[in-house]
């Protein structure tokens, strides 16, 4: 009973310390939260990728080509007149409903005003279609004739430029394909059978133009959550949260164990020894306090991360098992480390060093998660410290590893705990005997 009294007293004191509470709960959630919002903001609430609407200023100076007579119905238009102007087709495509969410197209009277609109930030890009655009296209001389578009953009609007460039390149690819088709047709049919060549080109262009009108064909934009793994963001946040939780669980184990030294220095531990309470009861109470504090921290963080970041920790039973192993390992590691320290003054330096080194080693597994072809040696190194095993346990759970693997990790955590606790408890008993 006295053991529990001592443990609950210490737990109460820990929870009353603003500093301790911030480091136990606030910092791990905050760090994970930073990562969450970094990825979360890009992904948006629905996981979609929200591109900005690009303001496009178009000047169509194209005078058309008499050799180009495209059936308007094949271009998805209702106009009865055939279209002889490729520039008009480009304008038409960019103004289509399919791009309404991506582009806001305005027609400019001349090239100068279009460029000025970009310079004055009234437009993000300007597309200037030259007068000979169609003429160059219909020339069958593939060596010298080229249809050239001018794309004038604000260099700071890289994303907007990329969007417009992507659409135009796709369109121009289609045009180039049509021209190649026409050249091939001209080589195989009689060079004067323009009607047949025109039909080939028209069919090709129609198909190309219709594809262009569908933005999905040209802008394959997938949100982070859609790439490869549908749960990709959680796959990133989960290990980070596990790493933070384990790092700070070991920190709590270390600092809570330090109360044994501090109570000794402040005189409350010697005073406890003057009460009719055995040394074993007192030290067991102190050790229990460390375990309880870390347990509260880990349980709160697991639950909080589940609700705040929607992290799927995996099978509840195995999560509880690994959490228990982590609590025991973190607590016993703290008791062990403090048993080697003479006074709490030494603690600050030693805690910082030991926790940073072992914590970083343990988290190698997380750092290398997104690095392809990581050396297996790195994974082995992370398992030299208990933090590495704890992290491995949580990662195994999140990917639903075989239960034997999880149980093995738990067993190793228990072995670490027994070793650390035995040495730590023995040294403390000897010190206060």
């Amino acid at each position, binding site marked *: 009973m006295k053991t529990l*009294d001592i443990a609950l*007293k210490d737990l109460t*004191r820990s929870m009353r310390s603003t500093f301790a509470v911030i480091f136990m709960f606030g910092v791990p959630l905050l760090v994970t939260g930073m990562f969450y919002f970094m990825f979360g903001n890009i992904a948006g609430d629905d996981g979609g990728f929200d591109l900005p609407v690009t303001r496009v200023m178009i000047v169509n100076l194209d005078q058309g080509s008499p050799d180009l007579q495209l059936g308007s119905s094949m271009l998805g238009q209702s106009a009865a007149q055939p279209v002889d102007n490729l520039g008009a087709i480009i304008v038409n495509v960019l103004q289509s409903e399919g791009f309404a969410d991506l582009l806001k197209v305005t027609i400019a009277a001349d090239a100068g005003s279009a460029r000025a609109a970009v310079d004055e930030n009234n437009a993000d890009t300007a597309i200037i279609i030259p007068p000979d655009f169609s003429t160059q296209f219909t020339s069958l001389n593939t060596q010298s004739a080229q249809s050239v578009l001018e794309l004038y953009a604000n260099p700071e609007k890289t994303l907007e430029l990329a969007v417009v460039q992507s659409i135009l390149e796709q369109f121009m690819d289609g045009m180039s394909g049509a021209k190649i088709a026409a050249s091939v047709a001209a080589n195989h049919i009689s060079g004067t059978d323009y009607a047949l060549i025109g039909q080939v080109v028209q069919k090709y262009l129609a198909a190309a133009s219709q594809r262009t009108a569908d933005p999905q064909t040209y802008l394959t934009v997938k949100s982070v959550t859609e790439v490869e793994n549908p749960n990709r963001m959680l796959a990133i946040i989960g290990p980070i949260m596990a790493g933070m939780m384990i790092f700070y669980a070991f920190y709590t184990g270390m600092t809570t164990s330090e109360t044994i030294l501090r109570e000794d220095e402040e005189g409350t531990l*010697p*005073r406890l*020894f*003057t*009460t*009719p309470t055995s040394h074993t009861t007192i030290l067991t109470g102190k050790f229990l306090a460390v375990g309880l504090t870390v347990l509260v921290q880990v349980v709160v963080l697991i639950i909080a991360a589940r609700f705040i970041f929607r992290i799927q920790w995996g099978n509840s039973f195995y999560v509880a098992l690994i959490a228990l192993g982590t609590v025991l390992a973190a607590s016993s590691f703290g008791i062990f480390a403090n048993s080697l320290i003479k006074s709490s003054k030494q603690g600050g330096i030693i805690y910082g060093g030991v926790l940073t080194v072992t914590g970083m080693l343990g988290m190698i597994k997380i750092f290398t998660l997104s690095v392809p072809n990581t050396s297996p040696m790195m994974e082995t190194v992370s398992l030299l410290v208990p933090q590495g095993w704890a992290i491995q346990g949580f990662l195994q759970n999140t990917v639903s590893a075989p239960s034997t693997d999880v149980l093995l990790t738990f067993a190793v955590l228990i072995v670490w705990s027994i070793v650390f606790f035995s040495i730590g408890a023995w040294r403390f008993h000897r010190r206060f005997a």
Partner: protein
Amino acid sequence: MNAIELNNLHKSFGELKAVDGVSFAVLEGEIFSLLGPNGAGKTTTISMLSTLLRPDDGDALVLGHSIRKEPMKVKEALGVVPQDIALYEDLSARENLVFWGKMYGLRGAPLKKRVDEVLETIGLTDRQNGRVGKFSGGMKRRVNIGVALLHKPKVIYMDEPTVGIDPQSRRSILDSVVALKNHGMTVLYTTHNMEEAQELSDHIAIMDHGKVIAEGTHDELVRLVGQSDRITLTLNIESARVIDLWRATPGVQNVTAENGSLTLLVDDSNLILPRLFEITALNGVRITSVEIQVPNLETVFLHLTGRALRD
């Protein structure tokens, strides 16, 4: 009957003999002071009696229980007020008392009742829910004492409980020590403050360099230096003739000269002092300063060790 008996206690830390064969006895219901300068071995003696330190040799009985063989019985019998405040500053006064009460085996309603009583005794009922860390030094001292009273011990050790506090809180603590005695408790009180020992104690043991160098009541100790008063004077000029005449004066026991001043041990300073002035005036010498010291524990310590208690 003896509440505490020390028999030849020894404790060394390396080469340092902190306690070197200390023996004394404390009667039930009395205030017994251990008086000595810092480093005399008082706290080490108390630590052994509290079972915090194991003696290298010798033994002590607290209410008949050996500190070596029955440490748990000893702990049950005594309350300890440590020299430094040993409380949890982030807990309230009441929470501290409840926790320490549990450590003394109190539970439930009896614990609550006793905590209320102790809060009343130390005068902190109104501030019971305030965090100890926010208390003044005097209030902390009172809680520190309150913890030792929770289980109604028959013997209480108080290790320099008035160090570093204001005169008002000091007065309050000294009054509470007397009150404990009046409630039948035996108090073992350590101090390096002569006035406290003189005011409180039924018996006093003077410690120096780990040994008890004198023990008894205040009057018994003062008699060790004879009932002499001590007069310290300075003259405007050195005069061997005046010193010789003083030595020859009836009632003057001894005259020593040191650092430009003269120290006389006399039977009664009130009778002798006019005669001393008369001799100096007749010889053309003038007394420039006079200090009279009636025998006290300081004199005893000086007499026994050749050093002042505050050195």
